[in-house]
């Protein structure tokens, strides 16, 4: 029974992490309909920035996290303004090619600068080890992930649903023409959203160094996971991707524990079945855009 709870706990932590990593993609892919396979590259950037700051410059871990966010967001906004915005109206094939090119470049560049081996971020002592909670082993680091990601999720939902910026974003996504007719600066909204999504990915990348492992092939290895979160979750709100990440996280951890030999087989099969059954995702809108 306690193993079940431990699996559940680890799965939730993993899922939350995936959500923070992928929710930027949920906006670009799900809402703006841009196939951005390079999303993992932004996460990797954040992770490496945090690693360099903490390991080499001796920054405290909690100061490295915001910096990971800021650096990824900055790179995101520069790339969006310089390159991505030209491709919003292009075909999906062009978008796929472009983002695959970016992935290849980022992988080789990080390999060149940082070396190809997996890196770790030095954690403060308070986050190491685990404690017992009614017989269930709770990892401190994973608990922190759940807390941070949970807060972020609530904040995101509030921003999207309650603030003026949130309603602007939803309007811009639903109908860019009508939105700009109403005086909403659509390119600015998109650029800001894109940068914010990249920042979240960077933060997720920094957090995931301990759990998922951080090496130059990160964008390729986890690309499929991000895509699963978005396509299975659908794009109607952030609740869909959130539930999908939790499902994916718990499913993956449980799968690795109970049927370790099947590897990622279970996840891919489930994804294909769900996509065949509901091409717009589990929680997607029925109308295709």
């Amino acid at each position, binding site marked *: 029974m306690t193993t079940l709870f431990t699996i559940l706990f680890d799965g939730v932590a993993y899922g939350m992490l995936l959500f923070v990593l992928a929710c930027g993609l949920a906006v670009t892919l799900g809402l703006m309909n841009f196939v951005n396979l390079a999303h993992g590259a932004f996460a990797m950037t954040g992770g490496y920035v945090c690693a360099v700051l903490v390991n080499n410059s001796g920054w405290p871990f909690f100061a490295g996290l915001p910096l990971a966010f800021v650096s990824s967001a900055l790179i995101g906004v520069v790339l969006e303004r310089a390159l991505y915005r030209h491709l919003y109206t292009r*075909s999906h094939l062009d978008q796929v090619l472009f983002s695959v*090119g970016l992935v290849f*470049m980022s992988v080789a*560049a990080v390999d*060149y600068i940082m070396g190809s081996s997996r890196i770790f971020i030095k954690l403060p002592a308070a986050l190491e080890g685990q404690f017992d909670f009614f017989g269930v082993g709770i990892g401190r680091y994973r608990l922190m992930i759940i807390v941070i990601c949970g807060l972020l999720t609530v904040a995101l939902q509030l921003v999207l649903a309650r603030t003026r910026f949130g309603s602007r974003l939803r309007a811009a996504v639903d109908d860019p023409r009508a939105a700009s007719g109403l005086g909403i600066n659509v390119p600015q909204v998109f650029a800001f959203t894109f940068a914010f999504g990249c920042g979240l990915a960077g933060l997720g990348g920094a957090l995931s160094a301990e759990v998922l492992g951080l090496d130059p092939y990160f964008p390729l290895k986890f690309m*499929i996971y991000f895509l699963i979160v978005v396509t299975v979750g659908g794009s109607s709100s952030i609740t869909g991707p959130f539930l999908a990440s939790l499902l994916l996280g718990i499913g993956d951890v449980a799968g690795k524990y109970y049927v370790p030999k099947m*590897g990622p087989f279970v996840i891919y099969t489930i994804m294909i079945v769900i*996509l*065949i059954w509901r*091409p717009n995702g589990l929680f997607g809108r029925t109308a295709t855009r």
Partner: protein
Amino acid sequence: MTALPDLSSHALASARWRPAEIVFWVLALACAFLFPSRYLIMTDIVRLALFALSLDLILGYAGIVSLGHAAFFGVGAYSAGLMALHGVINEPVIALVAAGLVATVLGFLTSFLVIRGVDLTRLMVTLGIALLLEALAERYSDITGGTDGLQGIEMQPILGHFAFDMFGKTGFFYSLIVLFVLFLLARRVVHSPFGLSLRAIRNNPLRAAAIGVPVNRRLIAVYTLAAFYAGISGALFTQTTALASLDVFSFERSADLMLVLVIGGTGYLYGGLIGAVVFKMLQEFFSTITPQYWQFWIGLVLVVIVLVGRARIHRWALWLPNLVIRQFAGRKAVVAIPESDAS
């Protein structure tokens, strides 16, 4: 009603062999005698060209964007390898066709998944199938040899006469002949009414359905055919290199393939062939400058191609040949790429 004879004569005219095409194949054959020391890389190019031809059939003619075409390549490679290893079918040509048929069966079965849904779902499903097969091959490593790959494949002589030599001469001519035969078949297919209906589907599926084209059945047919081609190219890979390992299924293989096709241009069959030559030469060039980091430059090429625009690049590339033709033949350019908005 008067449009009908026009249409058929137009289709016939476009199906006729042009001088440039004959020159292309004569050049390809000439390469075999011009560079006798480079057989291995040229075999590599031919294999890649066949693989790209396969993707062109579904991407250029039917508009299906696939991120997991390596699935069929891998299945073909492993079937050919296993057949040679366990002595099921020893004769390479029959084994080649058999491996292609295995991939065809897989293509037929998965085509039902692919025709459902829109672009994004297709991307995910094709990618998922390739990853699934990779995971399966890793799981059953006692059959596939896992990360080490299949060891000790011995190839029998082709048709019992032509043994594979260590310089790759036999392998090259074998691959070139296979490519040529399959190219002829593909050329026949895309210029047939079937091929024309595929183009109609690519341009507008709804309209194609409205004029009576059975959209789903055509897509299943061409997807299955493309799987056969990819399987054959995978089998060629195993037969000419005598190895098959997990990386036949890798995402990089599928992604590189898209780059090959994009360099050459989609929707006129020669794109994959020209793209394969250019891609391999670029790869050689980049890996002599930076052996470990050539992927960076390949990525840069992709980004630049997309940003400049695929149609515009082809116009630049064809500027000189077209100028020459205009000067000497005094007519409009014949070397034109019908660049499509494959989306």
